[in-house]
């Protein structure tokens, strides 16, 4: 009760537009309840220049949605395998479609990757929940790109919020790979418009990653939504 009165009086002391008041309210709440604020745990560099330039890498203690075609998703997983190898950390891949193929992946990366094959989406979400609660891993990948979109849409929206809240309590980066944008709770969204031809199969994979136009859309910076998110993607989330 005391906190509410204080907050109201503080707000009235700083008249301004509505957005300003909301920002003030956020600041007051952050001051009063620091324990519910996401912890700043840094980032996990991906080695993909376009992603690392915008965010420094994957945000730890946050949910990132990777939304692109299945080929881009598989390529991104391979890039992250090299990341965990380079960073000497441990990761888990929850594969909802049992589609992960180890062919061509480096043994060093595979040795650091715990793979969980799940039968359906909800089982995958439960497995992700367990892995996040475990707190031992630096990166948890939830790959749902091979799942039918209808089954994916059956997952309640609050599930993603719960996963986001869970991730906030850890230092792990949580990445959900989907075939189309659908996770409103995601703090960052990564995508690419790239589609490939058969000529790609003759090129080095590292060159394919480097030549792909990765796009990063952080949801919040300093408590405010990025314009690109609101303008370009609000409707997609809805």
């Amino acid at each position, binding site marked *: 009760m005391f906190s509410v009165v204080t907050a109201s009086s503080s707000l009235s002391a700083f008249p301004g537009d509505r957005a300003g008041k909301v920002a003030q309210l956020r600041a007051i709440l952050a001051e009063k309840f620091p324990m519910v604020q996401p912890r700043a745990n840094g980032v996990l560099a991906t080695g993909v220049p376009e992603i690392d330039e915008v965010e420094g890498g994957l945000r730890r203690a946050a949910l990132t949605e990777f939304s692109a075609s299945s080929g881009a998703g598989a390529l991104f997983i391979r890039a992250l395998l090299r990341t965990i190898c380079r960073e000497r950390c441990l990761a888990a891949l929850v594969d909802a479609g049992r*589609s992960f*193929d180890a062919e061509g992946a480096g043994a060093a990366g595979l040795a650091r990757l715990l793979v969980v094959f799940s*039968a359906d989406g909800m089982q995958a979400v439960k497995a992700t929940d367990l*892995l996040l609660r475990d*707190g*031992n891993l630096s990166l948890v990948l939830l790959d749902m790109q091979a799942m039918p979109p209808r089954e994916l849409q059956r997952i309640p929206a609050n599930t993603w919020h719960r996963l986001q809240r869970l991730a906030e309590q850890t230092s792990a980066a949580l990445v959900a790979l989907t075939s189309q944008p659908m996770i409103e709770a995601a703090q960052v969204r990564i995508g690419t418009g790239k589609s490939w*031809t058969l000529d790609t199969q003759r090129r080095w994979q590292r060159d394919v990653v480097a030549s792909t136009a990765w796009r990063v859309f952080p949801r919040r910076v300093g408590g405010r939504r990025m314009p690109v998110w609101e303008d370009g993607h609000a409707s997609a989330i809805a």
Partner: protein
Amino acid sequence: MFAVILLPNFRLQAALRFREEMDALPVALVDEQAPKMGVLEASSAAADAGVTAGQTTPQALARCESLVILTRSRAQERSAQSALLEMAAALSPEVEATADGFCTIGLQSSRTKDWQAMGTCAIAGLAALRLRAQIGFGPNPDLAFLAARRARPVLVVQSPTTFLADLAVQELDPAPELLALLRDWGIHNLAQLTSLPRGDLMDRLGPEAGRLWERAAGRAERPLRLVREVEEFIEEFDFEREIDTIEPLLFLLRRFLDQLALRLRQAYRVAGQMAFALPLADGSAHERIFTVPSPTADVDVLFRILHTHLEGLQLHHGATGMRLHIVPTRAERQQFQLFETPLRDPNRFGETLGRLAALVGSENVGVVHALDTHRPDCIELRPPRFHELDPAAAPGEDLAIGLPLRRFRPPIAATVRVMAHHPVWLDSERVRGEICASLGPYRASGGWWESDRWSTEEWDVEMESSGLYRLARVRDEWRVEGSYDEPSRGNRRGAGAVVAMQNGELAR
């Protein structure tokens, strides 16, 4: 100096170790295998009501209506004896397992000379293991034993002559005939006995009287039959009736672990493995061995491992008992690497793996391990061994070519039209249409020296309507093995999603 640790009413104490609720009740112990022996031992409350050893069960019940009759458990006696010897071994390496419920300890090489403090410490240690003990210290094993019998709970014999003088002759457990003869002579205590000349006594009563005299004089010396320390951390319990719910098992398991963890700590050991067994009503047993990822003596950690297993356990018959055997190991001393991020809590990770295995099946959790074959998609998931990772191992050069494959498991049967040795048309339940480009064939075969021979011909194809797939022909049957890139499944027939993405927006 020697010490004797004595557990009075040992068999009863062993039976009551995991029955705290019976501490204040009148309890009598009987042996089902020797029913004629009647009551073996009785608790103090039962003794107060007139129950004594040797009475038949009806006689005992006639004296005490509320008497609880317990059956002797040899398994629990073994556990209690192990706990006693472990405690003794903590005092000195020279330990003799003299009999069930007491042991003799040689303390000649002990640096500590504060016997009272040592005894008090051992009593407290055994009390934590729910064993009530008496300890006597004396200059020879027999004197130490006599002191232990009179100890409440610790007695140090400073002057053997004074200590022995007041003792009755029967304290030395002489032969009944000899005791009766001495009584006839008016010899009742040891002071009276040792006042007789030893040589004359032996001449009249034989060598046994000579040995009795030596013991009475506190001069009897004997070497200890030392036992090698066997670190056997086992707790067992037999239920009086079948148990078919998890709660009683968890309750008892927690008590087991409390006791075993104490014993481990006393021996400066930690649990490396746990062998858990539930004997079932049909005579079979459910058995499981758990490896503790990061050996520990932490009760909560060990309990969680077993709890996770019991939560998902379904048995067709009730449990008639429970057994837990802990294999001890030395505590790990792990030096964390500067640039390495090992598991912060290996035991918690082990528990998570158990939960994941219960959720998706153990065959669906683990680290990818390629089998020793060139056959495509021959992998299995094995339990991770993250603690064995070489922190200095270099990632190696990235030599992968092209897009990674997303496999369809199982592969999808397909019909393929071939022209000029190249696939030109694909029809399957997942993808259908004209193939505009293809790479291949990539042929592989193996196992020709075995009955399980295999051969495959693979093609990478690009569909006219977008999408890159891998086709395989196995025994003249085509199938779609997976995709390198595939439009969203909701938009597969059109290319709307991809077009929208190319315009810089995420798919609608």
